[in-house]
C-alpha cells in the first residue's frame, strides 16, 4: 500500500538525485565559464555551455551503454561465466543464426513472427486510423467528444492497458469470453492456445495504436487545401477518385514518417507481446521479447548483446530502405 511514508521516502530519493544533477550541472557550467569565457574568451562559449549538460547526459545514458553492450557481445558472459567472462570474438553473432535463440525457435522463424506481427498491426493501424481520421475531418456535431473518446487508449499508460486487456482475455472471468458465450460462440483459450494468443496480442496492440495513427493522419488531412478537392470535383472525380488521386498522394509526407515510426515501435514493442503472452509461448514471442528472455530469463548475457545488435541492424536497414524508396525525406535533402 502507498502510505505517506512511502511517498516521502520516494520523494526523498528522487530529491537527492535531482539535487546531485543540479549541483553537478552548476559545477560543470562554472568550470566551463572559467575556462571558455574568462580564460579563452571563445566566441562559441555560450552555445557550448548550453549544450554540455545534454551532451554529458547522452554520453552517460546512451553512448556508454552502447559501447558496454558492444563489448559484452564479444564475450562469453553467462551464469557460468558471470564474474570472469573472456573474449570469444564473433561466436555470439554466428550463434544467433545457427542455434535456437530461445528454447526451440530459431532466429528466422522468430523474425518471421515479428514481421507478421508488425505487418498485421500496421495495416490495421493505418486503415482504421485513416477511416476514423476521414470521419472526423468533416463537419459533424459532437466532433470534439468523438475525438476525445478515440484518443483515450493513447492516454492510458501502456502497461496498465495491457494488463487490463490480459484480464479481459481470462478464460473464466474475462469480458471477451463472456461476450463470446453470450453470443452463442465457444469461449477461446486466449492465453494458452498459440493462434488465439497471437490474435489477443494483435487485438490489444491495434486498440492501443489506432489513436496515434488517427491523430497524425487527421493533422495531415487538415493541412490539405480545399481547392484541390474543388478542382477534382469540377473535373468530375467521384469520392474514391478524390481520395486516391488527391488525398492519398498529398498525405505521403505525413503518413510515411508515421508508418516508419509505427513500424519501428511495433517491431520493438515489448509490453504487449510480453504481458499478453503470460505463458511464455514461443509462438507468441517476437524478437525483442526473445531478446529479453535470452538475457534475463535464460541468462545468456553476451549472446543477448549480439542478438540486440542484429535487431538494431535490421531496423536501421529497414528505415534506410523505406526512406530511400518512398522519397519521404527528399524535401529535407533538397
Amino acid at each position, binding site marked *: 500500500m502507498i502510505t505517506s511514508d512511502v511517498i516521502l521516502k520516494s*520523494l526523498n530519493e528522487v530529491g537527492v538525485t535531482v539535487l546531485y544533477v543540479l549541483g553537478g550541472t552548476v559545477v560543470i557550467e562554472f568550470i566551463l565559464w572559467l575556462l571558455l569565457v574568462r580564460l579563452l574568451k571563445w566566441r562559441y562559449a555560450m552555445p557550448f555551455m548550453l549544450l554540455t549538460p545534454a551532451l554529458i547526459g547522452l554520453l552517460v545514458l546512451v553512448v556508454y551503454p552502447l559501447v558496454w553492450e558492444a563489448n559484452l557481445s564479444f564475450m562469453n558472459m*553467462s551464469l557460468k561465466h558471470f564474474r570472469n567472462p573472456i573474449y570469444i570474438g564473433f561466436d555470439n553473432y554466428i550463434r544467433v543464426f545457427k542455434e535456437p535463440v530461445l528454447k526451440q525457435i530459431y532466429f528466422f522463424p522468430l523474425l518471421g513472427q515479428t514481421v507478421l506481427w508488425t505487418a498485421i498491426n500496421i495495416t490495421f493501424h493505418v486503415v482504421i486510423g485513416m477511416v476514423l481520421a476521414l470521419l472526423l475531418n468533416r463537419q459533424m456535431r459532437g466532433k470534439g467528444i468523438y475525438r476525445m473518446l478515440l484518443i483515450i487508449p493513447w492516454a492510458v499508460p501502456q502497461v496498465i492497458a495491457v494488463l487490463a486487456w490480459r484480464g479481459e482475455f481470462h478464460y473464466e472471468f474475462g469480458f471477451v469470453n463472456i461476450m463470446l458465450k453470450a453470443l452463442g460462440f465457444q469461449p477461446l483459450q486466449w492465453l494458452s492456445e498459440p493462434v488465439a494468443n497471437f490474435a489477443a496480442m494483435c487485438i490489444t496492440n491495434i486498440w492501443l495504436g489506432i489513436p496515434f495513427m488517427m491523430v497524425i493522419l487527421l493533422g495531415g488531412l487538415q493541412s490539405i487545401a480545399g481547392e484541390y478537392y474543388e478542382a477534382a470535383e469540377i473535373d468530375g472525380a467521384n469520392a474514391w477518385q478524390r481520395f486516391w488521386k488527391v488525398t492519398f498522394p498529398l498525405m505521403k509526407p505525413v503518413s510515411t514518417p508515421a508508418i516508419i515510426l509505427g513500424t519501428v515501435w511495433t517491431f520493438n514493442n515489448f509490453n504487449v507481446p510480453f504481458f499478453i503472452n503470460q*505463458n511464455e509461448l514461443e509462438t507468441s514471442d517476437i524478437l525483442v521479447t526473445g531478446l529479453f528472455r535470452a538475457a534475463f530469463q535464460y541468462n545468456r*548475457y553476451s549472446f543477448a548483446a549480439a542478438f540486440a545488435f542484429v535487431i538494431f541492424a535490421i531496423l536501421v536497414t529497414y528505415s534506410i530502405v523505406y526512406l530511400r524508396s518512398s522519397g519521404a525525406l527528399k524535401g529535407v535533402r533538397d
Partner: protein
Amino acid sequence: MTKKFMPVFTMILVLAFILTACATPTAAPVATEAPAADATEAPVATEAAPEPVTIVLWTKEGEADGGLQYVQGLADAFTALYPNVTFEVVNKEVETLREDFQTSSLAGDPPSLLWTVSDHAGPFTTAGLIQPVDELFDMSKYVESVVMNGSTWAVPISSGNHLMLLYNKSMVPTPPATTDEFVEVAKSLTSGDVYGFAYNQTEPFFANPWLGGFGGSVFAEDGVTPTLNTPEMVATMQFLYDIKYATPIMPLESDYNGADTLFKEGKAAMLINGDWSLAGYKEALGDNFGVAPMPEVSSTGMMPAPMTSGVYFMIPVDLAGAELDAVKMFVEFVTNLENQTSMVTTLARLPGSIEALSIDAITSDPILKASSEAMTYGTPMPTVIEMRCVWDSWKPEMISMLASASGTTPEDAAANMQAAAETCIGQLE
C-alpha cells in the same frame, strides 16, 4: 498568466525536492500482527548492539496470504529490539526476485539478504552471487538445507514448499485415495460454472508430482541429465490432457490466481496447491477446509511425488562487516523457537529449525498434520542449475499440448521438451 506562474511553480518544485531530501523518514508503521518478539528474549547470537545499518531484505512472500505482513512484522520486532538496525522489506515475485538479484549483483548493488526458495541456489552459486553459511551459523540446528560442492548455501526458514490436495469438505467429505476415485468424484461435482478440480495449468511445478506418480523423474541418476522424453512423462501429459478434455473435470484454462479464486469462492471442490497457501484457505473456508496427500496413481499404484524444499535465507557474496553482523543476528532471531512457533501458527508452515518440529502446534493441528504427511511422499527439489532448463523447457510444451487446437500430442510434447532442455543445458556454457 501561465508565464507568470511558471517561475513560481518551478521554485515550489525545487523547494519541495530540497525539503524532502532533507527530511528524515518517519518510523515504519507497526505491523498489525507482529510475530512473537518478546523483548526479554534476545537473539541467540547476541554479542553487542549492532552498528547502525539498514538491511534491504528481498522476500518472495506476497501480501495475499499474509506472508509479507509476517516478514514486515519480524523486521519491525527486530528493530524494536535493536533500534540501530532498520529494514527495507521488498516483495518480489519468485522469478522476478531471481532475475533482479542477478541483475543487481551485476550492477554491484545487491540487497543485503534474500528470503527465497531453494532452487534459486543453483543459479546463484553457479554465478558466485551468494556466500556459504557453514561458518556463520550452527547448521546442525536446522533441517536439511541446500548443500552443493561441499558447502551449505542457505539457512532454512520453513521446510516443505510441497504440493498437496486441498479440498472443500462441504463438497468432498472424504478425500479421494486414488486417481480413479479422484476423477469420479470430480466428475460428479462438475456442472455449470462449478468444477470438481482446478490447478495452475501453466506451471510445470504443479504437474511434476504426477510425473513421480507415474514412476518418472526429471533427471537421470547423475542428477543433471534430463529424462523428459520417457513413457512416464508421456503418461503424465496424457493424464493431464484427459482430465481437461476427456473427462472433463476442470476449467479449460486456469493459472495460479484463477484456480485460487475458484477454490476460495467454492467453485472448485478440489485444488492442488502448496503449504504456503494453507493459511489463506483456512481463513477463507474455515472448517470446510481439508488437506490430504495427492491421490495415488491408479495405473501404477504409486503416490505422486511433489518436490520439497522450503524457504531459505541466502546471503549475497560480498556482504561483510556491520551489515553481515546485523544480518546474522536477524537470521538467528527469525529462526529462534519462539518465532518459528509463531510462523507455524500464523502461516501454517512447517518450521526450518529442528527444535520447532516437535511443538504441539504441529502435532495437534489436523491441517499441519496432513501437510507433514503429504511431505513424506515428496522428493527433494534439485538445486542444480540444470533444473532451470527443465522448468523452462517443460512449460511451453505442456501449455501447447494442453491447448486444444495446437495439435501437440503428449509424445510430441515429451520429445520437444527433452530437446529444448538439452539445448538449454548446452547453452549454459
